């Protein structure tokens, strides 16, 4: 009963937060709503005894990804007026698509198909999520895990390739050369 209450609390707040993301007038507020939404999602994971994933959600998304999001949003002066210009014009189409998707998943959910897989129930704290996830991740899902790592590497390389610009007017330090400098290069004795 208490659990159900908490579920509705977290789920409800998550929906409210998600609505906040798209309706907030200030992009910084949008980001904060999103953070709040992540917290509620983490709460849902906790209810499922998946504390590892819940914590990871906070650590990775709230602790790192959203910080950078906020960073970018604060750096960019997003022109709100321009951003909202087409909002009403596209609302009917976007709203219709969203409604259709919602109706579909609700209808599919109510058909009872998804509940056929037995509910694993509570582990009662006997299972250490971290150990178990580690075990499957490094055995059964090893290939996927490694490929995901390659994808991240590619994302990294791609970001660097697309953005790096060596500016002509910037001054760069060459530490190796600084360290390897000899007195004779810096000091010249002149006969007076």
């Amino acid at each position, binding site marked *: 009963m208490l659990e159900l209450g908490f579920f509705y609390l977290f789920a409800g707040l998550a929906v409210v937060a998600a609505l906040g993301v798209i309706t907030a007038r200030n992009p*910084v507020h949008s980001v904060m709503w999103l*953070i709040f939404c992540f917290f509620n999602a983490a709460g849902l994971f906790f209810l499922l005894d998946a*504390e*590892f994933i819940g*914590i*990871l959600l*906070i*650590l990775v998304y*709230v*602790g*790192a990804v959203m*910080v*950078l999001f*906020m*960073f970018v949003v*604060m*750096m960019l002066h997003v022109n709100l007026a321009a951003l909202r210009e087409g909002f009403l014009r596209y609302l009917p189409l976007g709203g219709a698509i969203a409604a259709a998707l919602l109706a579909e998943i609700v209808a599919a959910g109510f058909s009872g198909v998804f509940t056929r897989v037995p509910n694993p129930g509570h582990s009662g*704290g006997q299972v*250490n*999520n*971290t150990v178990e996830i580690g075990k499957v991740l490094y055995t059964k899902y090893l290939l996927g895990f490694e490929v995901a790592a390659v994808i991240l590497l590619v994302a990294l390389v791609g970001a660097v390739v697309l953005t790096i610009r060596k500016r002509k007017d910037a001054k760069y*330090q060459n530490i190796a050369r600084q360290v390897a400098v000899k007195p004779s290069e810096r000091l010249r004795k002149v006969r007076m």
Partner: protein
Amino acid sequence: MSWLDVAKTGGLWALEVLAIAVPVALSVAYITYMERRIIGWMQVRKGCNRVGPAGLLQPIADGIKLFLKETIIPTAANKFLFVAAPVMSLLPVLVAFAVVPFGETTLFGLWKTAHVMAISNLNVGVLYVMAISSLGIYGILMAGWASNSKYAFLGAMRATCQMVSYEISMGFAIVSVLMLAGSLNLAEIVHAQQGGFWHWYLIPLFPMFLVYFISGVAETNRSPFDLTEGESEIVAGFFVEYSGMWFATFSLAEYAAMILISLMTSIMFLGGWDAPLPFLDFIPGTVWLLGKTAFLIFVFIWFRATFPRYRYDQLMRLGWKVFLPVTLVWIAVIGAAIYTPGLSEVIGFWRPGGGS
């Protein structure tokens, strides 16, 4: 569950929380005192010695002064975020203390088995601390942005880059600890190091200890990594517009974070509440833990008195080009050692269930 039970449990929780929060607040107050005295001595001057015997009441006086000061909210500031920011920076640090184990006790023989002295002995304690303490950045970011001042904003930007960069090497340093301890539970990590200082992770993970602690200094924006404040360039950084109690809240958060980092370093690398030599066991573990923590806090202050401030590009280089590779290499070294036949016995000495 009757109302009485609810009240009892609630009361107990409140007591537990207070038992952590009040000492933390007091420690913060007296660390400021300690800092001023120590830096004073290091610079061959007295430090604060007027208020009360040996200046011991100085922190109280400071607190009262800050409390009574007027809080100014700039006209162009985003009021809500401006007020929320200090709270947002203090709250995560305090919440993180919830899983820190301060020792083990049988409550003078009342309990048969030793209980871990933590509000919650969480299975994923290490991750919890990392996750929660990484939220502190929001306070700074929001303060910088909400102030609507360029110095504050620059300070916040610097802080963000810095904290995100150093969090990575910090995380990797923790990973190496986890590889040896085989647990994310802080109490388990301490258990894995019991039996004298030669069991502490300081020894096999010495580079990681350095990386973790130095990253911790950067993470708390303490000197020599206090570019966030950088008074010679950006006046006071993100809290330039703050005054009075809200300003004090930021200091409170900074010092509490310092305590937290010191505690975590003691727990993960210095054996937690383990006595350095087994025969010194008669001294309670908590004393050892707090002693180690106090020493590390002293080191924080020592750094401040000793090192000049880093330049920003050097700070970034240290994080990304020195610490990150070092941690990655050390993880590989530890991993290889665990799975190499000859070396696994050596490294097994520090692993629970292995060695002696």
